[in-house]
């Protein structure tokens, strides 16, 4: 599957009910609780952290320059010198996979920081304000959702031309409706709570209620959403790169490395296919399981169901 991410009613509900107060002082205790409650998720969280650290420290870690070709070692299977082998113009695959992660994660994090956040804020406003604004927002979101997200991203990326920024924008736009719908659902249920009524009763303005009383409660569901969206964004980015509308070569990304492997002769060498794809799978798996774990901790009632 590519970017399929249907928001099941159950997942929506899980996120919607996952609002609990959190404070910076409780972070440490929270992490320990997290590790004890769901060791699996904590383990995958560590993997996710490790992947981020490796990609950030890529320039220090890679054995070779990812762009430098070595014409004495072209299309060589994995050896001791090149652990993941080399591609058709002699570039080290391990270095390229690590640098590819840098590009993929930058795009994914950028797309989520921009798209999911914008969608969430929009959902907050439209859920809280209600009325005509909400009605119109809902229609716009439905129209955005009448495209499968990969196709929408492809069309936008193609129209804007290939590049880092455009890929981020293209993926971010596909994330907006999902963020909007989920956070709106959260806000709608929060609005009915008695503490919100109490705040209104003592005379807090609408803006104050929205920002001081509702917004903080949306942080937890937003975090859950953002973690799962990271995985989706990575897959979309890989698909875009694979289809030739992602970040253009020579910058390595996991997607364009896979596309490149198809140009390496009639039969793509297995090491050019295996490693970038395995990197995508591992990364997405790590973020998905971390997201599941966060949801389970924030809403233990659903642990047996999801």
């Amino acid at each position, binding site marked *: *599957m590519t970017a*399929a991410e249907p928001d099941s*009613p159950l997942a929506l509900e899980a996120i919607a009910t996952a609002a609990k107060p959190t404070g910076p002082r409780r972070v440490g205790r929270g992490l320990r609780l997290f590790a004890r409650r769901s060791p699996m998720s904590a383990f995958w969280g560590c993997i996710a952290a490790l992947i981020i650290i490796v990609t950030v420290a890529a320039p220090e870690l890679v054995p070779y320059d990812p762009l430098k070709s070595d014409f004495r070692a072209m299309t060589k299977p994995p050896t001791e010198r090149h652990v993941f082998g080399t591609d058709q113009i002699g570039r080290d695959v391990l270095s390229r996979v690590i640098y590819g992660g840098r590009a993929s994660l930058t795009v994914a994090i950028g797309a989520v920081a921009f798209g999911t956040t914008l969608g969430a804020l929009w959902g907050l406003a439209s859920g809280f304000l209600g009325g005509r604004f909400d009605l119109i927002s809902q229609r716009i979101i439905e129209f955005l959702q009448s495209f499968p997200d990969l196709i929408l991203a492809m069309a936008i990326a193609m129209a*804007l031309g290939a590049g880092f920024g455009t890929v981020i924008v293209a993926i971010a736009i596909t994330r907006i409706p999902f963020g909007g719908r989920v956070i709106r659902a959260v806000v709608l249920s929060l609005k009915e709570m008695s503490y919100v009524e109490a705040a209104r009763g003592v005379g807090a303005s609408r803006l104050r209620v929205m920002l001081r009383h509702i917004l903080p409660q949306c942080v937890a569901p937003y975090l859950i959403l953002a973690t799962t969206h990271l995985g989706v964004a990575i*897959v979309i980015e890989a698909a875009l790169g694979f*289809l030739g509308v992602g970040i253009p070569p020579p910058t390595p990304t996991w997607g364009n490395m896979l596309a490149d492997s198809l140009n390496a002769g009639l039969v793509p060498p297995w090491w050019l296919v295996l490693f970038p794809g395995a990197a995508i*799978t591992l990364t997405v*798996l790590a973020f998905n399981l971390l997201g599941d774990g966060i949801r389970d901790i924030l809403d233990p009632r659903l642990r*047996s169901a999801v």
Partner: protein
Amino acid sequence: MYSYIVRRLAFGLVTIFAVSVLVFAILRILPGDPLVAIFGMEGFTKLSAADRASYMAQLGLSDPLWLQYLHWMRDIAGGNLGHSFFRSESVGEMIARRGPLTAEIALFSVALSWIVGVPVAIVSALKPNSIADNVSRFFSIFFLAVPGFWLGMLIVLFLLFVFGYKAPLAGASLFTDPVANLQIIVGPAIVLGLGQAAYIARMARSSLLEVIREDYVRTARAKGLSRRPVISRHALPNALLPVITLSGILLGFVLAGSIPVERAFGTPGLGYSMFTAVYERDVFVMQNLVFLYSIIFVLLNILVDLTIAWLDPRIRYR
């Protein structure tokens, strides 16, 4: 029920109109010159201003945008979906020739996802947290993370290395040459089907777990029915309602997912032409294909809603 159908269809029409405007806006108004796509950046800079203007006029791109939009709609209404910049075949012919293959892949994959997903979910839900449950949950989480096109590439490589087998490259119709046709679609259908099966299994499991706790299921057990008929006749039909909705949505995503997957397998379907159109920056082909895919997506959603309304009286009588 009829008023529900009418309302749903009317909203569908509005959505399709909005989608057409959106597709048009994305592919025509956004920056990026179609002439750059046709001639390449270098060729484009060599063109004189007059050449550029005449090419744009030829392509109908120098009219005002609203007129271009109307022309596009007129062409579609007349069944003329335009030509590729680079190929002689018209878009309509291309869809007629390649569309069935992609449709077959999509339908086979949906069937496969139910055949795999639902039994797995039942086994899982009957004994939550058992070994079978954990194994199937691990696999569904795993298949949610594996990109289908990568799995496809691995399968192609594996078959080639181990059996020296390669699926036929030329398109073949199910009716004239069923063997070749099945060989082409089976790979993409399995990859896309497993991806969906992961979602189906997850959804069906949680939905079944919820339904099993309902009073009417306990009543059925209490009056002495054994476990098996209670699950299959009382619990399952209700538990599968959300799964049907999900499956419809997934079918739409499969159409999109088939683009990279068909590229990985080299399948001569519509997804592959979508890839070619994107790769060659063929704006008109892309515009019509994106619109076609979105219409299918919207219609599928309507179909799913109507099916659910038909199956679930609570929605019908609202």
